[in-house]
């Protein structure tokens, strides 16, 4: 990796031969300063990804290392032919779609609250909204688990037994639907602040004069929202949705803590983890990881195309 960095350096340097000494030394300094971070990022991620691609072509099991054999794409065949994989994919897509949709609405409301909060309350409101984001996901997963789990004395059933369908002995973690409900609720609680923060910065970019002008012209609140505020926040909404969707698709901690995949709640990350680290089926697990990675790439591609916003531009590049 060092060689490729220095090769790039040399290539960059050769292109610059005609330019002045000053700009050449600036380029060199640039790579000296930026190079280490760049190389480390590549080392840490490029190698494992290539290794995962490579491993996925072998029948590699750590329990029987001597029987390793190149089997090309048979791992993928096995994974794609296994209903467990499609079940996990479906659950992952479901969790992603529901959490992102709800978080977008809720996050927007919270962002509006943070944006408009009276000066005296602003500090409290902002801190409170940020707290869930600062809490370790594993901790929040336990908090939600204990509130609902009847085996460790959850109080939710006692509190909400007036709602139809909730009885004192309802076991939330005994079925797929109810387990997913708690998992999704905890995920929404934990990560909505992230979307709110990004939307808040988008709100701050909406020119106040435009809003005023629309109001003076007699636009109603919802008209101002649809015609002025939302169009001006497109970039912020895109970044928020994209990054949340990517995060949600990789959901792991909550599910691991609450159900560990029981009752068909196994998400893709957990399936990959259980296959490689749990059962030491490295070949199969790698194939699942690669498929997970491909899914994430597809999401990123669809989001960027769908919103027609230049990602690099919206993330701080000029």
């Amino acid at each position, binding site marked *: 990796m060092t060689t490729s960095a220095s090769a790039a350096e040399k290539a960059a340097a050769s292109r610059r031969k005609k330019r002045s000494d000053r700009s050449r030394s600036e380029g060199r300094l640039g790579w000296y300063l930026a190079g280490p*971070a760049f190389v480390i990022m590549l080392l840490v991620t490029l190698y494992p990804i290539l290794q995962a691609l490579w491993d996925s072509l072998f029948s590699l099991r750590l329990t029987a290392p001597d029987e390793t054999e190149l089997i090309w794409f048979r791992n993928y065949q096995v994974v794609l032919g296994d209903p467990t994989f499609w079940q996990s994919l479906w659950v992952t897509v479901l969790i992603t779609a529901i959490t992102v949709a709800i978080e977008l609405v809720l996050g927007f409301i919270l962002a509006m609250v943070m944006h408009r909060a009276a000066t005296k309350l602003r500090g409290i*409101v902002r801190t409170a909204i940020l*707290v869930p984001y600062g809490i370790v996901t594993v901790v929040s997963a336990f908090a939600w688990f204990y509130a609902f789990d009847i085996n460790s004395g959850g109080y939710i059933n006692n509190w909400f037994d007036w709602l139809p369908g909730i009885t004192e002995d309802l076991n939330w973690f005994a079925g797929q639907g109810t387990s997913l409900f708690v998992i999704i609720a905890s995920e929404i609680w934990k990560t909505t602040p992230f979307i709110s923060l990004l939307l808040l910065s988008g709100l701050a970019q909406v020119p106040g004069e435009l809003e005023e002008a629309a109001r003076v012209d007699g636009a109603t609140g919802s008209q101002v929202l649809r015609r002025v505020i939302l169009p001006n926040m497109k970039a*912020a909404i895109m970044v928020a949705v994209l990054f949340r969707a990517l995060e949600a698709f990789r959901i792991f901690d909550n599910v691991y803590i609450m159900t560990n995949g029981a009752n068909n709640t196994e998400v893709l990350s957990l399936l990959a983890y259980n296959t490689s*680290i749990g059962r030491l089926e490295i070949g199969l697990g790698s194939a699942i*990881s690669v498929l997970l990675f491909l899914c994430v790439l597809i999401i990123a591609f669809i989001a960027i195309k769908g919103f027609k916003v230049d990602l690099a531009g919206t993330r701080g590049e000029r």
Partner: protein
Amino acid sequence: MGAMSTKQKIGWIAITVVVLLWSLFPVVSILMTSFKTQAGLFSGRFLPPEWTLENYETILAPGGSAQDLFLPALRNSIGISLISTFVAVVLAMFCAYAIARLDFRGKKLILTTALAVSVFPVVSIVTPLFNLWRTIGLYDTWIGLIIPYLSLTLPISIWTMTAFFRQIPWELEQAAQVDGATPFQAFRKAVVPLAAPGVFTTAIIAFFIAWNDFVYGISLTSTEAARPVPAALSFFTGASQFEEPTGAISAAAIVVTVPIVIVVLIFQRRIVSGLTQGAVKG
């Protein structure tokens, strides 16, 4: 915003109460669980019928049954998160300076790579690392966690700090160079002080990310030599196999949450401005 009518005031107070309930209720809920006795756990009540510090003794006091699991994990988490935050912030600082300030080819490549690195699913990375670490002896060591944490903290640090550094008035640095300072001196004397708030915010975000990690923590460690808190929490067991470790886990959760909440309280303004600058700035 002008003076508010009483109606608006009441409205805002109501909204604030709802927001507070929404954000803090699960935290208070786990706090209450941490004060419950084993019998109190099964009361199905929110408040402990009987208050006890027993759970905190379990994880913190000498002789507590989960103390051997929790305290080393706490030490590991603090040490590993601090070191990886420090390394990431220093490396990202130089990188972001170069991107924001210098003219060289490959800037776009670096930013794009950082973005690509941050979309890699951790689970896709962890299996090869698990194998490699076992082969070269980094499995279950501090360094074995610090290196993968860099893949989580470097990209966002580079992006956030680049955004910060762009706002620095660079004439100061030129002035320092004209006065005879070397580029490095100019960087250190003129830029670093102005960049400090940005670096600080980035450090907080990076620390949160490292502190929050779970997948690397459970996959790349096996003993108290390196196991961080989030992983240790999932290894807690009750006094017997029929007893859920609910109370001890809740107490441990509170112990690791308190510092984070304090950090959020103190720095919320900076975190907000820092995050939003890093994320969306046209």
